[in-house]
């Protein structure tokens, strides 16, 4: 047992004078009276190990003992993770009985006594390697694969496999041997150091499939591909959390990992409360069945914020290795960056921009790179799609965390204060935002097949119309309604139509909140048809009135079930309004 003694304390930075060797990022436990505080080595100078405590250091004294654990911060991986609510260090919060999270309380991540119906996949004498599927248990609605431990290197031969039956996670379900005949027992649980990417796949492939979210401004205008990465920066009050929750509820993924990193506790409580009630349309189960929550709320110790994002990503990588589509949402990566800044400051490192550590961009991009679409050792596919939110200080997108993230992510959903102020939700700015997937031939091909042949062309046209409408509005504001050609008003109102009908969406409405692809196609075509029509209005007040009426009917359509009687009724009203206008058009000389 390697030990050390506490030498200095500033907030959660503790300097431990080590008696023997120490390892960078090694976990150590510091004794404080009857309890132990978990801490991680982050810097070593001579015999002094600088450790960041994951708990409050109140009452800690010089001379208190520390015990080094010989391993990095690890996650426990095995069946039973789904529906769990963990803190950043993967303590199962439900197992902590008390109202308060008292220091030094650590609970098992998995349920040691639970039993699982195991079905073998591999056979004796088969060659396996890290990540090979040995067997399967049913975890909620997911076929949870039991895999050869990822820490093993090289090829192994299967010596024994357990028969179909009920086993505990710590029971041996297979025995494998390396080429020298050294045997390793495989159980249903394994450990992985969270800071290292858990690979377990053969190769990464380019993303090509749409990750459907049901959110129109994302799916149609700025699509996110399975295995892609996106980020949502926005000032407070611009609807980041509502948007993230909508994505968590609606996205067509097999497993959703929600990481609340330094955010509000009530937002997590909302998920605890609502997800067990909501149906998962894909499996018929409940939404909570496919969800894991890492709740490291803003009042929990700062150091475990960093741990929380790595723990969440490691769990996602584990499920990806089973050939599943995993979605990871982290809210907010800025809080993690701030935690890094606090620590860097306490260690008196030379600061980078805005006092953030110099290696921030590298840390962020290394983390985003853990997402991706992969081909597994058995050629099955799995993916991790990652969406992070960023909380830019003062809403300024030129700050270091936003800039670092911009370099790392595929798509960018800028939330606009102005749109939020005028209650145009989701407040994603369609002009500022982008998705690099719009230029991926793989994804375009997929969208042309699943939505329509004209999909890409229509998206480009629509973005164009929004831009022109915005320009027209500026001209109108500068010159006045009367002093611009009528054409400007028409352009402006057509962009308003796209805005109100397609971009704006009521996340709290059961029907409008989710738009399936067939409905999206209908909307795209119908709105395009109206925008293509050239109207011959006599004055600008007429234009505004006419478009307000169209938008009002569209709102009713958006609130009606697709192809229901109600829907068809409003659709007829819309057609009438359009036909009337076409007749008027014909009577007006060009």
């Amino acid at each position: 047992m390697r030990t050390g003694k506490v030498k200095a304390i500033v907030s959660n930075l503790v300097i431990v004078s080590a008696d023997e060797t120490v390892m960078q990022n090694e976990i150590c436990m510091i004794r404080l009276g009857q309890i132990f505080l978990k801490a991680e080595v982050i810097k070593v100078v001579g015999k002094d190990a600088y450790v960041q405590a994951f708990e409050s250091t109140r009452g800690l004294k010089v001379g208190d003992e520390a015990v080094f654990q010989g391993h990095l911060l690890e996650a426990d991986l095995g069946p039973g993770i789904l529906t769990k609510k963990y803190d950043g260090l993967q303590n199962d919060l439900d197992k902590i009985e008390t109202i308060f999270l008292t220091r030094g309380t650590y609970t098992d991540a998995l349920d040691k006594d639970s039993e699982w119906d195991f079905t073998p996949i591999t056979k004796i004498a088969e060659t396996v390697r890290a990540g090979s599927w040995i067997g399967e248990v049913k975890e909620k609605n997911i076929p949870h694969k039991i895999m050869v431990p990822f820490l093993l290197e090289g090829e192994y031969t299967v010596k024994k496999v357990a028969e179909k039956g009920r086993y505990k996670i710590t029971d041996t379900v297979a025995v494998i041997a390396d080429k020298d005949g050294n045997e390793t027992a495989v159980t249903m649980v394994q450990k992985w150091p969270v800071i290292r990417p858990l690979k377990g796949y053969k190769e990464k492939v380019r993303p090509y499939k749409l990750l459907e979210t049901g959110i129109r401004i994302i799916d149609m205008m700025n699509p996110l591909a399975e295995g892609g990465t996106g980020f949502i920066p926005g000032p407070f009050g611009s609807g980041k959390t509502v948007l993230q929750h909508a994505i968590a509820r609606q996205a067509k993924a097999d497993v959703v990992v929600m990481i609340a990193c330094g955010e509000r506790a009530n937002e997590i409580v909302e998920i605890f409360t609502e997800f067990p009630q909501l149906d998962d349309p894909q499996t018929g189960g409940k939404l909570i069945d496919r969800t894991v929550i890492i709740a490291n709320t803003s009042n929990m110790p700062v150091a475990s914020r960093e741990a929380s994002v790595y723990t969440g990503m490691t769990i996602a990588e584990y499920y990806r290795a089973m050939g599943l589509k995993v979605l990871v949402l982290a809210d907010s990566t800025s809080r993690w960056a701030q935690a890094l800044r606090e620590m860097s400051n306490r260690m008196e490192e030379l600061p980078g921009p805005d006092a953030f550590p110099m290696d921030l961009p590298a840390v962020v991009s290394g983390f985003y790179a853990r997402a991706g679409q992969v081909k597994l050792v058995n050629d099955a596919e799995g993916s991790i799609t990652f969406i992070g939110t960023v909380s830019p200080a003062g809403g300024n997108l030129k700050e270091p965390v936003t800039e670092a993230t911009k370099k790392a992510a595929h798509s960018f959903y800028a939330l606009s204060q102005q749109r939020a102020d005028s209650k145009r939700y989701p407040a994603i700015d369609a002009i500022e935002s982008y998705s690099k997937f719009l230029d991926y031939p793989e994804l375009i091909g997929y969208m042309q097949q699943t939505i329509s042949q004209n999909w890409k062309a229509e998206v480009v046209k629509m973005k164009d119309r929004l831009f022109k409408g915005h320009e027209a509005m500026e001209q109108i504001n500068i010159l006045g309604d009367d002093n611009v050609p009528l054409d400007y008003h028409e352009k402006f109102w057509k962009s308003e139509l796209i805005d109100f009908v397609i971009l704006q969406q009521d996340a709290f409405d059961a029907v409008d909140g989710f738009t399936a692809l067939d409905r999206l196609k209908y909307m795209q075509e119908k709105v395009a048809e109206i925008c293509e029509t050239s109207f011959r209005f006599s004055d600008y007040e007429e234009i505004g009135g006419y478009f307000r009426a169209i938008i009002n009917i569209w709102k009713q359509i958006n609130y009606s079930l697709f192809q229901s009687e109600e829907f068809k009724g409003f659709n007829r009203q819309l057609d009438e309004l359009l036909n009337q206008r076409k007749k008027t058009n014909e009577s007006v000389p060009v």
Partner: protein
Amino acid sequence: MKASLFKKIHTKVIHLTKATCTLEATGVGYEEMAIVDGKAAQVVKIAGKQVTLQVFEGTEGIRTDAEVVFLGTAPTLKVSEELGGRFFDAYGDPIDGKYAPAGKAVETGGPALNPVRRKQPFDMIKTGIAGIDLNNTLVAGQKIPFFADSDQPYNAVIALVALRANADRIILGGIGLSNDDYLYFRSLFANTDRPEKIIGFINTTESPAVERLLIPDMALAAAEYFAIEKNEKVLVLLTDMTLYCDALSIVSNRMDQIPSKDSMPGSLYSDLAKIYEKSLQLPSGGSITIISVTTISEGDITHAIPDNTGYITEGQLFLRRDTEIGKVIIDPFRSLSRLKQLVIGKKTREDHPQVMNAAIRLYADAANAKTKLENGFDLSDYDKRTLAFAKQYAQKLLAIDVNIDITRMLDISWGLFRKHFQPEELGIREKYIEAYWEKATEPEGEDDVLTDENVMLADTSFKQRNKIAPKWQ
């Protein structure tokens, strides 16, 4: 703060700054309290034998051979029912000239609540103010600040909200309160139905700035006692949190920390989150709601203090003077209550969300029309109607002296819609139009209501003290 007997006395101070003192000592716990030459202090750094203390009252007059006694605990508060109706200083010592209450000593600034032991907030707080109840509905267990410029009557407004909010307990955390405002709160709260309902932890501008750092933790330790052990609905008022942040920056500066944005410490977000996240709703019924004041400069919310606050709290309320009606309103554009979705249309009438949004959108259209007018452009008929609507909307609903029930607020909104618009201009779901449009009637009279609180808010002596006279005319 008094030292208990039989503690070791240290007398070797080796370093003094305005706010900190360093001495040689062993066996000292991190964050432990101490008495330096009779002044309260707390351990903020230990490096080998050198212990650095933050001296709350400042270090003037401290000698290098001053007596330092360590108390063996972090800051504590004695909690019991006896706290009710009393006023204390930042150390929890009485300032109302009465006895020191007995009770169980608890450490302040304690650990975080286990998120799985919380309940989702559900209990609406009614204030009668439409800018809150209609547009930014508050829920017990919420944390929300008023972002106000220094010349705005924020203390009068939070007092009004607190008194109307039907709480079991109101705990005032006065952080750098002017003595006049402290006396105002005291005299106002003296007239409540149950005097024991009120508790105050007060640091006025006359007391040392660094002492302010203790106030929120004290107030919230008391709040946790009443909410968790007594299942009470507790409302905590913290005013002014900007002064708390200023005190943080003083200390971090003295500790030679590298400042981040706006000279604030890099840990500002975490420091504030530790306070605001003490708001809670428990399954047992107890709750802590935090309403705070963050003063800002000329409406600038990009400054680090309001910015970090906004990311932590569940919304924010802005006060603004509406020049059309000459009254203070709760700004419908910038204000937000994040928890309102949990109650509106569920605990209130079904049409609430849509009516609220439609009215705000029309009010925004009016703001655009006003810009056009100011730029010398002609107004369309629609523009003129939105302007007429906006004025009445501000007068009958947004003005802070309105005190009516939510259903009445919705009826008034429908009345205004019908008076100025056609149904298709509202963008409201047809089923609500069918249900409410025909029934809507024009709201009567100019001045709907005049209540005791309005009179209180308009109290002349208070107006003069705070130089807010023009706002309440």
